[in-house]
């Protein structure tokens, strides 16, 4: 039984587990293709995640890479969109993709016995996708309509606007998903050219499944014929200086709840070597029911249903933020409390119990990151992308154990300096009065961010 070959290491304790842990990750070279494989025979299925070292930063217009993957199965010279969909659906094959500014991933999940037909078809599309005009026009029409209707989800709309505001002035400001303006500029040729670039881009295959997945090697060599050119990192990164205002995005109707986003962009220098400290900070502030913000906002005051904190790190930049909401009457109070929490944690006003509690939370929860092989592979993918040694993943519990309250305070001061926070509130414009007691309010139109 090889299900999670690395799993037994936990039974002998994490401290002694290091060598076995790394042994479970097989790094292979299939011709020019780098492969990372974890053998998993719990079920007769496989997941193949093709990592492309290229993402939306290469887009001449917002959303082009996303559209290329969205329309990947829109047709080849031999088959229509419907025929391709019938093919994959018949095999129960699931194709998903993720596009970020820095990289893109296409994941294929299917039964192991169907590796040859499924992966053969994927390769066929890589070589022969036509992005037919009719399908592309339909896609553009649907995408536009859907984006105009984003106001039906205040949370998703707030996320989109906040991303744009907090990244303004950086090379990451263009939305990965595209915009109303950019959709109209897509052509079949542009998408074909983009796919051709991706065919040549350096790729790494992250693979989980039983030993039978090795059959994929021949399919990829014969049918995909990829090349793997490394792509240059993007140009110099600017450091935006946010306006000291609260952006208030007014939405139609009688919104009686305000979406709140607070955070900022982090440069490479700010995130370098700080991943574990920042993960601890996020957990401490908003990583569960016992986190500082949930306790202050929800448990003690009943101001919200949820509050979360994140520091998401890419290879060259990061983003930090707080996500919550509150009723109109208490939105300003919620923001003030978040500010106070930032300042208290930065000043070291943290009890030993609070600190040790969150250490226990992260260390004890470590094993859950390996329960699903695909999640484990996802972690490895991120480590590889960020150029981190897997030893850091192995040593994560020890790293957290060594942290001190001073480390936490320092991380808080670095990530959440209040005067550099971008603040967005999405809700009713009547909020302006109460919010202006915290900072000047700048009204914005949500439509300008679609």
């Amino acid at each position, binding site marked *: 039984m090889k*299900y999670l070959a690395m*799993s037994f290491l*936990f039974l002998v304790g994490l401290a002694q587990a290091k060598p076995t842990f790394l042994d479970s990750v097989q790094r292979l070279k299939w011709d020019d293709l780098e492969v990372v494989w974890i053998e998993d025979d*719990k*079920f007769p*299925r496989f997941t193949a995640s093709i990592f492309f070292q290229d993402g939306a930063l290469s887009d001449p217009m917002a959303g082009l890479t996303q559209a290329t993957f969205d329309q990947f199965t829109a047709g080849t010279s031999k088959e229509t*969109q*419907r025929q391709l*969909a*019938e093919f*994959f*659906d*018949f*095999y*129960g*094959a699931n194709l998903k993709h993720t596009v970020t500014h820095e990289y893109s991933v296409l994941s294929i*999940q*299917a*039964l*192991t*016995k*169907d*590796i*040859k*037909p499924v992966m053969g078809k994927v390769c066929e599309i890589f070589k022969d996708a036509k992005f037919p005009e*009719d*399908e592309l026009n*339909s896609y553009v*029409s*649907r*995408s536009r*309509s859907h984006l*105009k*209707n984003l106001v*039906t989800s*205040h949370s998703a709309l707030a996320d989109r606007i906040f991303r744009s505001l907090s990244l303004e002035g950086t090379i990451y400001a263009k939305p990965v998903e595209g915009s109303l303006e950019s959709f109209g500029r897509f052509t079949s040729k542009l998408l074909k050219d983009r796919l051709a670039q991706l065919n040549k881009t350096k790729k790494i295959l992250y693979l989980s499944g039983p030993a039978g997945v090795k059959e994929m090697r021949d399919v990829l060599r014969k049918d995909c014929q990829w090349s793997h050119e490394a792509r240059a990192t993007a140009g110099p990164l600017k450091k935006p200086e946010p306006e000291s205002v609260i952006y208030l995005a007014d939405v*139609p*109707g009688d919104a*009686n*709840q305000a979406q709140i986003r607070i955070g900022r962009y982090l440069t490479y220098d700010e995130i370098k070597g700080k991943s574990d400290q920042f993960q601890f900070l996020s957990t401490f502030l908003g990583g*569960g*029911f*016992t986190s500082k913000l949930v306790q202050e906002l929800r*448990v003690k005051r*009943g101001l*919200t*249903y949820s509050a979360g904190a994140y520091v998401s790190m890419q290879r060259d930049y990061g983003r930090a933020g707080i996500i919550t*909401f*509150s*009723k109109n009457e208490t939105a300003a109070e919620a923001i003030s409390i978040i500010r106070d929490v930032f300042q208290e944690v930065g000043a070291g006003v943290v009890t030993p119990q609070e600190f040790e*509690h969150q250490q*226990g*939370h*992260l260390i*004890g*929860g470590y*094993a*859950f990151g*390996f*329960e699903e092989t695909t999640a484990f592979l996802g972690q490895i993918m991120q480590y590889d992308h960020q150029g981190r040694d897997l030893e850091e993943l192995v040593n994560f519990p020890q790293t957290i154990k060594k942290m001190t309250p001073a480390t936490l305070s320092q991380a808080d001061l670095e990530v959440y300096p209040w005067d550099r926070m971008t603040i967005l509130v999405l809700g009713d414009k009547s909020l302006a009065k109460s919010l202006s007691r915290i900072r000047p309010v700048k009204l914005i139109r949500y439509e300008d961010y679609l």
Partner: protein
Amino acid sequence: MKTLILLLLLAGCSTGDKRTAATAPKPKTLADSINLDVTEAKLPNGMTALIVPNNKLPIFSLYLFYKVGGKNEVPGITGASHFLEHMMFKGTKKFGKNSLDFIIEGSGGSTNAYTTNDQTVYYENLPSGQLGTILDIEADRLANLNLDEDEFNKERAVVLEERKMRYENSPRGQLYLAMVQSLFKDTPYGSAVIGEIPDLKSVTRDQIHQYFKRFYAPNNLTLVLVGDVDTAKAQAMVKQKFGGIPASPTVDEAHAELTEEKFQSRVRADQVVNKKGESPSPIFMLAYPTYKVGHAKGYALDVLSSILGSGKSSTLINEYALIKKPVATSVYAAHQQLEKAGFFFIGGELVRGVKLEDFRRDLKKKLAGYCETEVTDKNIQKIKNNYLVDLYAGLDTNAGLAQFLGDRQTLFEDWRFYKTELELYEKVTVEDVRAACHETFKKPSVFVSVWNKHK
């Protein structure tokens, strides 16, 4: 809840098996192939415990299924089940105020809960070694829940915010709520599980306490434990912690009062419900009443819903979305089966400029035709293949398996019912699906839309 389903009828798409029919062993059915190593214990106080060992990682998942939900509420206390779910995290006699989350998260675990029309489920994912503590917590909050008045009122505000988030500030939430309110009007399924706002504002701590005393009892509870545990020791611990808690004398009576007849849709003619909401393009749902979970025809309707509205090759997506001039940005179909009734629904979002009424008529007109043109052997095989892949995904984690078993034990009073389900799915034929399709689409329906142009 849409039951998780699967089938192994993969012969049609098999390419890897080179055995000939003459030499191949008799194929196993899926029911033969999936055998779960479950130890079942029934305590004298009526509690059921299911334990599945899995020592691949030093972690486990614990799920507690209480058979109480929106269906058990009456006007005046709508939302009681969900409110109580929130209060269950507020502390117990032994563990004190607001300490449960700290104990669980402090050891590296996570916890949460959800409330449906039919059940309230609490779950924890924890590292090995915490079993005794978490069983202690679960037993103590069942026996000695701390319903502090101040905490109760603070949590009322949180629940009201959650309600606003899910419904008042969400056109999609408004749409779903309007659909169930119309389709199940005057039945216990005809309101929001989270509760009506006036009830949430007026319900008292004592009302919730009475509700708790009636429904939170071992004879209304299934505990499922999956992961790195020693079965015999775990079983002994469960008996030790929960064995002394008395059964509820009235819970069986409460369930008996809820006859199926009370849950059947009263819709006798097609209804069109227009709700004004902040959606610039219309979003819609077309719903038909069907059958309670476990009904034989329900399996055929599950297959139908996937044929019509699941995946890029499905009928409705290709009819309305993936076309030259799309009518809808998204469209889907689903079959939802609850303990006492079910419903089949089609939903989606229209492209701006499309006339809602024209779309509604067109959709209604085409549905019966699909029963013949779309229900084919090939499509049924396709859906069965997809179910298998979905099942694997669902059973990949301790939590997934715990939920799978707990759902079946709670809804069918037998976790082994998954075998019956597999057999029923295996037997679904074109004729079954066509018959269920025609029968369903002849029934009176409810068409609900939310749009900012409605008055």
